[in-house]
């Protein structure tokens, strides 16, 4: 104590210093908090909606997923676009089109007034370039396989080239004066030989005299194994290409692909685009309105490259809206595109896209007036919503099937009687009434029944009905009378309360109706997918949303060679029917073939359909131009807000309004 007293002046100074320091830190921290909020208050948007999460990208070629779709569809426009009510293909960038009688050649006539958001015209060349980019292996577009209907497209994407194929060789150097991310100098020729180590596969006779092609010049004495050397005939000359150009006499290259000039996509003139298909595709016009097939601006992509070209300051689009800014996991702001050809019919100036993921948070935002549309609501509030605001809650059947996969490679599920017994012991009504509760319809066919609204000629083929007695009989016939000796199996599902509730209910139903015990196995998303792929499951939960309004979208994934077929189920007749349907140009006969295929699927039951998905939109009454449809597609182009009604409905909010 005494010592402190003598030192007091110094201590006093130290204390003051520390206090000032502490105050300084406090000011800094608060300043930091304010800085984090800087410039973040915004003028309100005309229309705000929740998009359920941050989108992956705005690059149309790379997107998958409905959240991405809502934004990309507003930014870009393809050859056609879907009608907001009935989803029929409407003119987009193409004002009209011609289809050849055999259904194989499509001619699209582009409207001359179509513009990019920087004012440059959208031309047929833009589409050719965009489709080429879409198919290019370097782009690695996830939807690439959807464009493989086009002649030569699959060869181009998969870089599978055979002897005699026309090829294009992209060299490392860019053409002089090209933009930094442009395609390198590209040579066209014919593949005449492939040399791997000492082995040569070549066309005989070689088209040009191999005057200097003695063994040593070809490096054939050299046993060193390197990347294969491709012999390409270019303008009557033989040139050899190898990755890295390790072997003397070879040239390095970036890509060696099937020649795009032989892929069935070509610009006839500035405003005419021709696409040739391998077989008739009844939904091809619809497909061209699907957002991944939107054109991208070559001049912008080649200048900045991916992903820099997607930055708001660089991005050039051709749809109704342009990107104003993006704040990660917060919001995307869209503004009306002044160059859009149909700008007079775009009625919203500013649209905010919120990245709110939690269903409950979305509901809170909706009820505090901060968002005008939420695309999904928590299941437990649905009865309440139906009671309180029935005119705001829209539920409509979706083109999607919730189903259970059965691993037919694992006993006892390899026995069709067991599969049928399991299917017949499920009471779907109980599932939709007790668990999902949003108005889902029980489904006994793989193809959802709502498809018949658009394709009335198709008759979905239903599997067996709920019938406990018959299920027991079948199980007994398979040797598990009363569930005795039934091997332990389990239901695999990805972590989610809804999936768990359904799995528990089915577990109880099987126990009750068949007397079998079934385990539950819960895995997080990526692990669950991995288990499914590797066939490490007995029964697995699955869901499928159709990409296009056609039964094949729901049947194709059960074909023997489909990578999507996790059930290990293979049925030659089923595969054959699908193949026949693919090449059938008469729509009626085609649908009949598909129905026969579905009949087989529903008799064999490698998968048990449970219910049809429904949309669960909560939309403010002043939002107009919003329609329910089976793809839950609500283009921002057609949406508008009745401002007078909005003022009447939306009361002033906030503390002061409340006090009054």
């Amino acid at each position, binding site marked *: 104590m005494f010592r402190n007293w003598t030192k007091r002046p110094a201590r006093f100074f130290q204390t003051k210093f520390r206090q000032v320091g502490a105050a300084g830190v406090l000011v800094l*921290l608060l300043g930091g908090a304010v800085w984090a909020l800087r410039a973040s208050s915004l003028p309100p948007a005309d229309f705000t909606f929740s998009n359920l999460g941050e989108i992956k990208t705005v690059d149309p070629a790379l997107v998958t997923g409905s959240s991405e779709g809502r934004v990309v569809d507003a930014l870009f426009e393809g050859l056609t676009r879907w009608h907001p009510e009935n989803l029929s293909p409407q003119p987009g960038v193409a004002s009209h089109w011609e289809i050849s009688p055999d259904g194989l050649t499509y001619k699209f006539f582009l409207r001359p007034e179509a513009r990019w958001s920087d004012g440059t015209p959208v031309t047929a060349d833009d589409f050719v370039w965009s489709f080429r980019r879409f198919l290019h292996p370097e782009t*690695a*577009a996830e939807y*690439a396989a959807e464009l493989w209907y086009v002649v030569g497209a699959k060869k181009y994407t998969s870089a599978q080239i055979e002897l005699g194929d026309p090829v294009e060789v992209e060299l490392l150097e860019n053409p002089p004066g090209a933009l930094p991310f442009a395609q390198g100098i590209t040579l066209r020729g014919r593949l005449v030989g492939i040399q791997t180590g000492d082995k040569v596969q070549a066309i005989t006779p070689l088209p040009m005299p191999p005057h200097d092609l003695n063994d040593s010049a070809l490096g054939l004495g050299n046993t060193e194994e390197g990347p294969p050397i491709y012999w390409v005939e270019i303008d009557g000359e033989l040139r050899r290409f190898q990755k890295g150009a390790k072997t003397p006499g070879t040239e390095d290259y970036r890509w060696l692909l099937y020649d795009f000039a032989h892929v069935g996509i070509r610009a006839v003139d500035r405003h005419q685009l021709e696409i040739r298909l391998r077989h008739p595709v009844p939904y091809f016009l619809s497909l061209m309105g699907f957002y991944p097939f939107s054109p991208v601006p070559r001049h912008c992509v080649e200048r900045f490259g991916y992903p820099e070209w997607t930055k708001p300051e660089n991005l050039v689009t051709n749809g109704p809206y342009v990107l104003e800014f993006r704040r990660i996991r917060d919001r995307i702001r869209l503004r009306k595109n002044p160059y859009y050809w149909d700008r007079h019919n775009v009625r919203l100036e500013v649209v905010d896209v919120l990245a709110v993921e939690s269903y409950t948070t979305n509901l809170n*935002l909706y009820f505090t007036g901060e968002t005008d549309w939420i695309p999904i609501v928590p299941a437990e509030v649905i009865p309440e919503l139906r009671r309180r605001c029935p005119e705001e809650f829209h539920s409509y059947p979706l083109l999607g099937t919730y189903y259970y996969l059965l691993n037919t490679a694992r006993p006892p599920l390899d026995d069709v009687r067991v599969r049928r017994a399991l299917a017949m012991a499920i009471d779907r009504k109980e599932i939709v009434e007790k668990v999902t509760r949003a108005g889902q319809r029980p489904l006994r066919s793989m193809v959802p029944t709502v498809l018949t609204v658009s394709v009335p000629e198709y008759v979905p083929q239903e599997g067996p009905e709920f019938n406990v007695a018959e299920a027991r009989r079948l199980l007994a016939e398979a040797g598990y009378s009363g569930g005795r000796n039934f091997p332990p199996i389990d239901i695999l599902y990805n972590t989610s309360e809804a999936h768990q509730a359904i799995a528990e209910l089915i577990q109880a139903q099987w126990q009750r109706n068949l007397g079998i015990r079934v385990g539950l196995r819960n895995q997080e*998303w990526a692990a669950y997918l991995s288990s499914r792929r590797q066939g490490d499951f007995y029964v697995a939960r699955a869901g499928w949303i159709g990409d296009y309004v056609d039964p094949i979208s729901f049947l194709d994934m059960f074909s023997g060679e489909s990578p999507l077929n996790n059930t290990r189920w293979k049925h030659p007749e089923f595969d054959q029917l699908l193949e026949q349907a693919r090449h059938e140009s008469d729509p009626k006969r085609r649908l009949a073939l598909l129905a026969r295929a579905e009949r087989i699927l529903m008799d064999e039951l490698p998968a048990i359909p449970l219910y049809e998905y429904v949309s669960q939109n909560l939309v403010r009454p002043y939002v107009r131009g919003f329609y329910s449809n089976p793809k839950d597609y609500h283009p921002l182009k057609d949406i508008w807000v009745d401002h007078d009604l909005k003022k009447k409905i939306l009361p002033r909010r906030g503390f002061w309004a409340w006090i009054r």
Partner: protein
Amino acid sequence: MIVGFLVRRFVWMVVTLWVVFTVSFFLMRAVPGGPFDRERQLDPQVEANLRARYQLDRPIWQQYLAELGRLVRLDLGYSYRLGDFRVSEIILQGLPISVAVGIVGLATAVVLGLVAGCISAVRPGSLLDVSLMTLATIGIALPSFVIAAVMIILFVFLIPLFPAAGWGSWQHLILPGFCVGAPYAGSIARLVRSAMLEVLSQEYIRTAYAKGVDTTGVVLRHAMKLTLLPVVSYLGPAAAGILTGSVVVEKIFCVPGLGVHFVEAATQRDYTLAMGLILVYTLLLFVLNTLVDLSYRLLDPRVELR
């Protein structure tokens, strides 16, 4: 001495970052599932193209060296899942927001904790003490989403003081900040109470009372400083916990901070983003702990820095 301490800490930090990097790198790739797994499984050829694009087709040791090389050049690469952004962009946008919420949370925790703790310590065993400590225990025990739900019902719907969620004004900070800080306020209150009780029983406090200082003076001027020691040592981990553990609150209030990124990057196998966030959090923990050690020295000169 402080310089030497900081240099030693820095060296350890680099070593720690490297170890964390290596362990996370191999752990992430050992978990089943990859960044390109979708319910709609990709065509094998398309997936091969994707893997080549991200160089995942190379042997793992090559990937490791390449990524380590990038890290040394302070380049965290592009996110797999949010492909339009560099990992550094995502962190630069999210970190200040997480920090802002964290600061409000920490301020709430310290202020509430100190006040409640001191009041309880001055009147131990009183009704006030019991109720405050019960409240503190409830604060610790209740998960933050329950606190958040109660706060939303109270201050968003019943008394519309604050926005329900989102980001953009100071009002958006308050509820998330409070929910993040509440459990820590409880812990701090209990810490302060016990520390203060101990300090108050010491000789020099009796002397202070004997000199005629009133209770407020004794508590604030004489006892507070020693009481703060355990609080400060608790603040380091608490700050780290608030910054990393705000996932649930960030999700409920849709605060675009780093917490949600962290969880999603892990579940979606976004290798680059997950790695970036792991390293940032490691760095934060290290810096915060170093700051705590330094502040010890300031509060109690007897402490030696090693």
